[in-house]
């Protein structure tokens, strides 16, 4: 009797374990999905002419501002990384300091506020800490500040180059 019980237990154990090891009622599929890195930047509109008008006697001309253009960006980055938007003015105006402000909505990066272009062809940070986000319309405000009286002139348009780049 004892031998029979031992045999039955052994058979049952072996059968049970063998079944557990089979596990052919489960199948797994591995799906490969690729998300590309995206860095898209665009401006809309052309800034109007900034006209410096005559000041009152003894004062410098008033500051002029222009805020008709907008900027849009779409960006995604690897975990732990961010991007920034820089601006560069090709050449400076005589007697005038041009500065700019680019807004950044919540979660769209951090605006540096008003940044003057104090050197030509130099990249200045306008928005930093841009993570995974898209924003369709942030305002660009240009500001012209007369720093010294110069002879009247009409300058040709100067180009500001905006760049979305890795924030390192």
């Amino acid at each position: 009797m004892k031998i029979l019980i031992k045999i039955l237990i052994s058979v049952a154990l072996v059968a049970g374990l063998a079944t557990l090891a089979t596990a052919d009622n489960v199948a797994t599929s591995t799906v490969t999905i690729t998300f590309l890195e995206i860095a898209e930047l665009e401006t809309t509109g052309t800034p109007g002419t900034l006209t410096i008008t005559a000041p009152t006697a003894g004062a410098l001309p008033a500051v002029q501002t222009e805020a008709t253009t907008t900027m849009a960006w779409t960006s995604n980055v690897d975990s732990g990384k961010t991007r920034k938007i820089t601006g560069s003015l090709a050449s400076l105006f005589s007697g005038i300091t041009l500065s700019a402000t680019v807004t950044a909505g919540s979660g769209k990066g951090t605006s540096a506020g008003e940044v003057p272009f104090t050197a030509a062809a130099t990249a200045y940070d306008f928005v930093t800490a841009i993570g995974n986000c898209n924003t369709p319309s942030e305002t660009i405000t240009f500001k012209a500040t007369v720093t010294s009286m110069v002879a009247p002139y009409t300058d040709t348009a100067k180009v500001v180059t905006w760049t979305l780049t890795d924030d390192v």
Partner: protein
Amino acid sequence: MKRIVRYIIPALLVSFVCGAGICWATSSITATPNYSWPEIIGDPPPAAGSNLPNTSESDSAAVTINITASGNWGLKVEKSNWPSSLHLSIKKTSPTPVGDYQEVTDSYPAEDFISGSGDTTVTVQFKLTNVSIQVPPGTYNPTVTFWVYDK
């Protein structure tokens, strides 16, 4: 000791033998082991300021599932290792009729998907929703697991 021999050991034997018997009768399953999503998300990139399209669908027969069964069966599905913000839905595309999309979660136990009887080949299609720029770039290898059981 006698009580053990008379009651417990027979009970154990019955449970093991019956358990083994049920398992031997259980339906079996195989599925396409690997599937590459046909769309590279972000190619072409969205316009500046725009988000990625919210949805993306796989091929209509992304995965083929072969079920071997002698009777009625049920199929459960679950996902794992998916980017947390992405939602995955699945539908049966064959045999007809084509099913409706059903969201797959990574909850345990797996959710009921479809049922049938006898040997059956099933094809399924996937749909991603909540695709967005919030998903960091990279190549992801999440899994979808199918479980077949006797009904």
